[in-house]
């Protein structure tokens, strides 16, 4: 029971991070129907931007309040990551709209390889550890031998995720930008005829997705305290799995899928084998796509001629 509660907390934390990344996949897929393969690497880039910004703030500028530093890091990382994602869309995906089916996908794979190797060249191939940031924990249960703890950073991750998702939901449901975006998802040509700037909307979709990935990147850095150039691939695939599991194109689905994947991964590691935890995630991806391509909350896809 104790272990179960502890793993539940850990799983929800990890799931929040996956959910934030998954939204980027699901929004882009919803609007232009492509798998943005480079999104995982955008996440990794954001972790590095956070790392650099954090070091700059704490060691060079001498900010001692860790919460102030994290807040600034979050904003800075969101800005620069959004810029990166905007540029990627502009350079690598926009010219390919209307090209043959596989072209954007191949371009995205190229971009993914480029990003991870760019970071490797620019920042070096080694792990970049930061000292543990917020180490305080709340002890929830204590039976003498095993303590169930809730770390403050887990609270922060879940709270930030919840706040951001509420804001994001408001943005998509209630603002004119959100309406334009949903219109483009349903019928891009019709939306353009009705005076919506489709290119602009698509760019903004990439920017929002990247901003959420940047939040995930900062949280990841805070939680694990390490950044590595190859860290975009596996979390990226897992977040994509989350998006697929929740039903690709569905925003609540992405969050639900993220939490599920986080929980599955953590419980699998705790109760079965930690070596095969990635195999579990990859298998879920394959099984979902084969047997339930519409996911938990998605709509079945209608093929148009």
């Amino acid at each position, binding site marked *: 029971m104790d272990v179960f509660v502890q793993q539940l907390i850990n799983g929800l934390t990890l799931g929040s991070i996956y959910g934030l990344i998954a939204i980027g996949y699901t929004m882009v897929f919803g609007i232009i129907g492509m798998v943005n393969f480079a999104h995982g690497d955008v996440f990794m880039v954001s972790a590095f931007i956070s790392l650099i910004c954090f070091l700059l703030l704490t060691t060079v500028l001498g900010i001692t309040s860790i919460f102030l530093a994290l807040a600034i890091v979050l904003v800075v990382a969101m800005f620069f990551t959004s810029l990166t994602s905007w540029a990627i869309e502009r350079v*690598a995906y926009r010219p390919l709209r209307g*090209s043959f089916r596989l072209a954007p*996908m191949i371009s995205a794979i190229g971009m993914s390889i480029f990003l991870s190797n760019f970071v490797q060249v620019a920042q070096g191939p080694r792990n970049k550890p930061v000292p543990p940031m917020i180490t305080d924990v709340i002890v929830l249960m204590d039976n003498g031998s095993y303590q169930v703890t809730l770390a403050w950073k887990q609270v922060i991750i879940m709270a930030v995720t919840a706040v951001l998702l509420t804001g994001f939901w408001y943005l998509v449901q209630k603002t004119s930008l959100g309406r334009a975006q949903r219109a483009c998802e349903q019928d891009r040509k019709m939306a353009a005829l009705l005076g919506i700037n489709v290119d602009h909307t698509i760019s903004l979709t990439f920017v929002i997705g990247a901003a959420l990935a940047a939040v995930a990147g900062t949280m990841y850095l805070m939680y694990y305290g390490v950044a590595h150039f190859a860290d975009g691939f596996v979390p990226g695939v897992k977040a994509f799995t989350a998006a697929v599991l929740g039903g690709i194109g569905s925003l609540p689905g992405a969050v639900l899928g993220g939490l599920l994947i986080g929980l599955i991964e953590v419980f699998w590691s705790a109760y079965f084998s930690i070596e095969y935890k990635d195999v579990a995630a*990859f298998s879920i991806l394959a099984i979902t796509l084969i047997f339930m391509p519409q996911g938990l909350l998605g709509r079945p896809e209608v093929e148009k001629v």
Partner: protein
Amino acid sequence: MAAHTAESASAENAAPASPSAFSHALKDAFFAGLIMLGLVGPLVGFETVIRDGALGLDYRPLTVAVMVAIVFVGRLILNLTVWSPNRVVKTRTGPSPMARAVTAAGPAFKPALLAFAVAFPLIAVLSQGGLNESRYLIDLGILILTYVMLGWGLNIVVGLAGLLDLGYVAFYAVGAYTYALLATSAPVNDFFAALIGEKFWADWAFWICLPAAGIFAGVWGMILGFPVLRLRGDYLAIVTLAFGEIIRLVLINWVDFTGGGAGIASIPRVTFFGIPFNASEHGFAALFGLKFDPMHRIIFLYFVILALALLTAFVTVRLRKLPVGRAWEALREDEIACRSLGLNTTNVKLSAFATGAMFGGFAGCFFAVRAGFVSPESFTFDISAMILAIVVLGGMGSQIGVAVAAAVMLGGMEMLRNLGFLKQFFGNEFDPSLYRMLLFGLAMVVIMVWKPRGLVSTRDPTIYLKEKKSVSGDLVKEGHG
């Protein structure tokens, strides 16, 4: 690098040299530079370094300044020349210049390339003046041919059938491990020792395992392909990627069976159809009256992989003329049309997938016998991506394009390693070979944006009336099935 449109080139600015056009270009270039600064500023401007156990920062403002300046100046020049508002855009309907060059070189091109490939070891030995001196060149030739073969194998899946397979390396791994496990297995050795002779398995393992590895990889292709081939293109890509990773993770973690991360070492070497390459009196050299030299084995390996690659090419060319090959290409162009014409798309896809996998298995078996050692490290996603990059760059579906792309990319990679003089400009820590995957990724993006059909993009029609017309790939529009 940054934004890539000629927005500034508005129609009113008729005169290219008018002050407003210039200020426009200047403004645009300024913003491009600003964006570049935002892109490279954090990641290039600061380097995280571990100093005394803690993480610190180094600063590289000069590099950032140079990169931003390049973008600014480049964009300014482009705005004033290529993207100037009164430039007449040329449209081309015929084959691309590159394709025309290949056509002009004509029927002689392919035989010449083939003759060069066959004569390559001789050329290498003569030019380097000795067997041992030519080792580097021949090893490079073997490496390039391995990738040519993998490229041709993947070309069946991606280029002909239009199925994006990101897990091709899995079949390469299956082939390699098939040979490694069978050849080092004691029970199999004992079985043949009892049945035929003591030395039989050691001498013939490769030649028996080669077809077995191919067939086994093909069966794996079917097993993996069967459930996933109903999926649409990009889902298929992701699922094959997942399968590739699963196989690699299993190879790492199933230590009892595969040896885990340590891999399998001392795999039996290749033999000349049962005659080992060693200094004994039953060895290859003694039998042919030559002086023993370890290079004989390397040169023989070169011819083995050449033969395997040519087999792949030959089978592909023949298959394209068969109904199944036509069905592959039809499927690539429009899946819905195929289905409405009564093709069983699952079977057609499965055959392409399995055929491609089979050649991957052959190549894997060859890899194991050449290296004498396999470990999961050799079968990462990077290899899949590299093979895919070769196919994409060569022009999906073009045999000769894939071969040229493999030679250029791997040759270029080797050249990167030799660019030692660049250290004078960039400092001693500069290692050009680090940039290899970075350039691969960039090349894939550039090719997709600039020439989505690859550098050699002419399509030879498989069926034609009276005469064969070559059509530029630019004019072919694939269905969105």
